[in-house]
C-alpha cells in the first residue's frame, strides 16, 4: 500500500495518520463542514470534503468515502473506531473497489458485529457467555418475557455496535418501554441499526478486555488485558493495564479464552475480546470489538508495539512474526478519556471554542488529542477531545504520574472532565484498585469542583481583566497625546 485514507475524525484520525506518516505512506483525511480546519485535516497530505456536519451525510456515507479514496488514489482505508469501523458494508465496498480495508474481513465483522450471533459462536467454542437473548427483537412483549426469564436487573444493548451506545439498564418491568425507546433510538443514530437485545446485568463486575491480533495465516495471539471498569453510563472513562483484579492463573485462562474466541471467528487484524469478571474469578464473554479500541494506547505503552503499524502490516499480508511467549508487557499504563462535558452539571456536553490550550508532557506522558487552541468543538459528534496516557514502572507511580499530568493540562473556554478524572485518580478506592463497573455510581455520583482554589482564580481573573483593560481601554487622561503635552510653540 502507498496511500491510506482515514475514514474518521478527531483524535483517532490524528493518531492513525501519524503512524502512516512514520511508515512513509501518503495520507488522506476526510472531513465534514464542521471539521474543515480540524486537527486531523491539518495532519494529512490531502483532505477530501465529504458533506454536511450530520454524520449520515459525511462520516457514515460509504459511497462518498469510497469516492474520496478513488479520487485521491488511496489504496487502503483505515476506519478508526465508531462511525463505519464495525460496518461490514464498508469492508465489502472496499473489496469491490479494490481498496484494502484495514481490519478484519467483512464476514468476520458481520458475525461478531451482531452481538447475538457472536454469543452463539462463543458458546460453540466453549467460551463462557452471559445469560441473554439469542436474537434481537423490537417486540416489547417478548422483551418483557425475556427480562422476566433472565431476572431483573437486565441490560438492553444494541445489536449493531458497542461503546455504550444504545445501552440501558432496566431495573423493573415499569421501566422497560421507555428504556427500549431510548436504547433503540440511540443505537439507530450511532450505528444505523436500531435493533436491541437483553442480557442479564451482572452486579458490579470488573470489565476486563483482551487485545488480540490475528494474521492472514491463521495465527492469533493476545496482548494481555485492559481493565476498563471506571465507566459512566456504560462508557469507559479510565482504563489501565495490567488489571489490579487478575491473578496470574485467571489471566492465563482469560487470555486463552480470548485466543479461542479469535480463532473461532477466523479473526484477522486487531480486535478486542471483552469479558466481565466476577469476584470469584469466573468470567463471561461480553463481545468482540472488531476494530481498534479507543484505549489501545495503554497496550502499546506496556508492550512497546504500535498497533496501527501492526494493523497496516497485517492488512498488507505480512505474518505476525510474534509468538505468544515473546509478548511480555512491562510496567503499568493508564488512560483517561478527556471529554468536552461538564462534570458539575450531569456531564452535559459542552461544545464551544477552546480559548487556551496547554498540553501536559514529560517522561511516560502521552497525549493523543484531536484539538488545538482556537478550535471550535462541534456539537454533532462524540465529545471526546483526546486521551491522556501515562506509563510508569508500577501502578502507584502511574497513578501519581496521571494526577500530575491532569493537573498540568489546561483547557480553557469549555468545560471538560479533567477535574473529575483528577479527583477519581486521587480517591482512596481508585488508589486501592477497587474498580468495578459501579465505581462512579458508588463513589462519585455527585461531584463538584473543590472550591478551595477559587479565591486565587478570582484574583488571577482580576489581574487579567485589569491588564487587558490597561492595554485596550485606557481613558485619554491616562495616556496623554503629544497634542496635550506640547506646550506653546511657534514656527
Amino acid at each position, binding site marked *: 500500500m502507498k496511500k491510506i485514507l482515514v475514514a474518521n475524525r478527531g483524535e483517532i484520525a490524528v493518531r492513525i495518520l501519524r503512524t502512516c506518516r512514520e511508515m512513509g505512506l501518503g495520507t488522506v483525511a476526510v472531513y465534514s463542514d464542521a471539521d474543515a480546519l480540524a486537527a486531523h485535516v491539518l495532519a494529512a497530505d490531502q483532505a477530501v470534503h465529504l458533506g454536511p456536519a450530520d454524520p449520515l451525510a459525511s462520516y457514515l456515507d460509504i459511497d462518498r468515502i469510497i469516492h474520496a479514496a478513488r479520487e485521491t488514489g488511496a489504496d487502503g482505508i483505515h476506519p478508526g473506531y465508531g462511525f463505519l469501523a464495525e460496518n461490514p458494508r464498508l469492508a465489502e465496498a472496499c473489496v469491490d473497489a479494490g481498496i484494502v480495508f484495514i481490519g478484519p474481513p467483512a464476514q468476520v465483522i458481520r458475525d461478531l458485529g451482531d452481538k447475538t450471533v457472536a454469543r452463539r459462536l462463543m458458546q460453540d467454542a466453549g467460551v463462557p457467555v452471559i445469560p441473554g437473548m439469542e436474537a434481537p427483537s423490537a417486540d416489547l412483549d417478548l422483551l418483557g418475557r425475556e427480562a422476566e426469564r433472565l431476572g431483573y436487573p437486565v441490560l438492553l444493548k444494541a445489536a449493531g455496535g458497542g461503546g455504550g451506545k444504545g445501552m440501558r439498564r432496566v431495573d423493573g418491568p415499569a421501566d422497560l418501554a421507555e428504556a427500549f425507546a431510548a436504547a433503540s433510538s440511540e443505537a439507530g443514530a450511532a450505528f444505523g441499526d436500531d435493533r436491541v437485545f437483553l442480557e442479564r446485568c451482572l452486579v458490579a463486575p470488573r470489565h476486563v478486555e483482551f487485545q488480540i491480533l490475528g494474521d492472514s495465516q491463521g495465527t492469533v495471539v493476545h496482548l494481555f488485558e485492559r481493565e476498563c471498569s471506571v465507566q459512566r453510563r456504560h462508557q469507559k472513562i479510565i482504563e489501565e493495564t495490567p488489571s489490579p483484579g487478575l491473578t496470574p492463573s485467571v489471566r492465563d485462562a482469560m487470555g486463552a479464552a480470548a485466543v479461542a474466541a479469535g480463532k473461532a471467528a477466523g479473526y484477522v487484524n486487531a480486535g478486542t475480546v471483552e469479558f466481565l469478571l466476577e469476584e470469584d474469578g469466573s468470567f463471561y464473554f461480553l463481545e468482540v470489538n472488531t476494530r481498534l479500541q479507543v484505549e489501545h494506547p495503554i497496550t502499546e505503552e506496556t508492550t512497546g508495539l504500535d498497533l496501527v503499524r501492526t494493523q497496516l502490516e497485517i492488512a498488507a499480508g505480512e505474518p505476525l512474526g510474534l509468538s505468544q511467549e515473546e509478548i511480555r508487557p512491562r510496567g503499568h499504563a493508564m488512560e483517561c478519556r478527556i471529554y468536552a462535558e461538564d462534570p458539575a*452539571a450531569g456531564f452535559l456536553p459542552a461544545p464551544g471554542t477552546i480559548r487556551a490550550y496547554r498540553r501536559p508532557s514529560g517522561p511516560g506522558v502521552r497525549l493523543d488529542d484531536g484539538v488545538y487552541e482556537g478550535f471550535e468543538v462541534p456539537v454533532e459528534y462524540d465529545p471526546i477531545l483526546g486521551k491522556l496516557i501515562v506509563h510508569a514502572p508500577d501502578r502507584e507511580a502511574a497513578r501519581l504520574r496521571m494526577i500530575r499530568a491532569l493537573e498540568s493540562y489546561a483547557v480553557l473556554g469549555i468545560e471538560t472532565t479533567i477535574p473529575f478524572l483528577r479527583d477519581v485518580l486521587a480517591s482512596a478506592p481508585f488508589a486501592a484498585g477497587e474498580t468495578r463497573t459501579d465505581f462512579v455510581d458508588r463513589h462519585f455520583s455527585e461531584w463538584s469542583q473543590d472550591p478551595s482554589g477559587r479565591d486565587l482564580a478570582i484574583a488571577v481573573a482580576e489581574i487579567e481583566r485589569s491588564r487587558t483593560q490597561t492595554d485596550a481601554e485606557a481613558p485619554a487622561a491616562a495616556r496623554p497625546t503629544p497634542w496635550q503635552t506640547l506646550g506653546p510653540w511657534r514656527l
Partner: protein
Amino acid sequence: MKQRPDHRVLPDGRILLEIDGRTTTAVTARDGSATWVFVDGRSWKIDDANQAPPRRARGGRDDLGDVTPPMPAAVVRILVEPGDAVVRGQGLVVISAMKMETTLVAPHPGVVAKIRVAIGEKVAPGDVLVDVTPDEPHETDPSEET
C-alpha cells in the same frame, strides 16, 4: 484573598504569581463577559459581574419555568401531547447532542398547552420547546404531588 498577589506576565502570556513564598503560573483567556483561569492544576470560569456564585446545575429548566435546552441540540422524541396533565419533573421532550440524549422535564405541575417543535428540529438555549400552563396551587391535589 484581600490583596492582589505579586505577579508578572511571561513572554507567552501566562501570568507568573508569587503567593506565600511559592511561585506558580496561571493561564488565562477572555470569553465574553468572563475570564477563564487555569491555576494550581484546576480551571475556573470567573464571570466579570460578581465573581462569586458557583455554577448552577443545568437541567433543562430555568427560573422562569421555561422548557428550554441547556445546549444546542436536536429534538428526537416528544413524550406528551397538548392537553396532557403533567407533574413537576415529568419528561416532556427528549433532545440529543453529541450522540447523548437528555430529557427536558416539566418545571411545575400543569397542562401541556402547546408543543412548539417537531422531531428533527434543531434547537438552542433560549428556545421554548413546550408551553406548560401551570396549575393554580389550590387546584393541585396534595395526594398527587411527587
